[in-house]
């Protein structure tokens, strides 16, 4: 019984390792691990890659991830930048396919607007409270005392 269990675990390991090796044996995409020759273009590509999310790994940018799909995305980004495409156009292209999920750059949208509106509202509220306490403070307090 125990031997069987050991065997099953060993086989699972072999299958898992074989799977990973098969994936790794493919050469990476041309620009997955190679920078663009033009440093200005590379800087643009790097800035964009740091704000694009790896779709396979949770909460990593494609610049940080070693997943093969992230490598393909880096290569795609670099080749498009080298072809003269605008970084924001590349981001828009990806968001058209994967939604907000793929981008780490904050965007004001139907669902995210409260995040941007709330601080403004809170500041305005705090300002109002301060104005009442300090500016009109003594008068207000007198008024309260009278009533």
């Amino acid at each position, binding site marked *: 019984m125990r031997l069987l269990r050991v065997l099953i675990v060993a086989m699972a390991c072999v299958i898992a390792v074989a799977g990973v090796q098969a994936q790794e044996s493919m050469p990476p995409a041309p620009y997955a691990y190679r920078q663009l020759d033009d440093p200005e273009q590379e800087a643009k590509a790097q800035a964009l890659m740091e704000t694009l999310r790896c779709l396979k790994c949770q909460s990593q940018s494609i610049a940080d991830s070693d997943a093969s799909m992230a490598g393909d*995305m880096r290569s795609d980004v670099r080749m498009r930048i080298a072809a003269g495409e605008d970084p924001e156009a590349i981001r828009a292209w990806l968001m058209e*396919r*994967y*939604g907000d999920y*793929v981008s780490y750059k904050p965007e004001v949208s139907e669902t995210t607007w409260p995040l941007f509106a709330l601080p403004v509202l809170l500041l305005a509220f705090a300002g109002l409270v301060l104005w009442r306490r300090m500016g009109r403070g003594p008068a207000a307090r007198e008024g309260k005392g009278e009533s």
Partner: protein
Amino acid sequence: MNRWFILPLVLFLAFVGLAGYMLTKPKDEFVESRMIGKPLPEFALPAAAVDRPGLATRDFRDGKPRLLNIWASWCIPCAAEAPQLEMLRRQGADVVSVAIRDRPEDVAGFLAQYGNPYSRIGADNLSVVQLGIGSSGVPETFVIDGQGIIRYQHIGDIRPSDVPTLLEKLQEAAK
């Protein structure tokens, strides 16, 4: 002191309540494609296997709906869904596919072991189709109608219980 004093406390408790509630809900890790209802991106892939042709966008524009399976020989759930793809093929579905980052000998080995339900297999070594169609992993299966419009996405391996849904979506796409 007035009753407005209690407002921040109420807001804070509401926030804690919401956070607590969200913690109890299982995390949804699927990234759905936004390409449903849109045409397939333009692509033309070489064949990934010797006995099946490659795959291009124009292959989808002959009026016949198809299943587009995105898979790879190194993907373990792809082996698990192989019998279900065969079942779909036997029930009349035309299954075409894209093999992601795969070597011809690995593709041949996988097909020899798990069967070949595909009428066409394109080799996508740079994930071009995968990115273009909004797929975030393997395996995924899309229903494409006869005009090349993406109609439905199934994320993950196809279980026996998913087969009727996919057949139904194929029929819907034929209308």
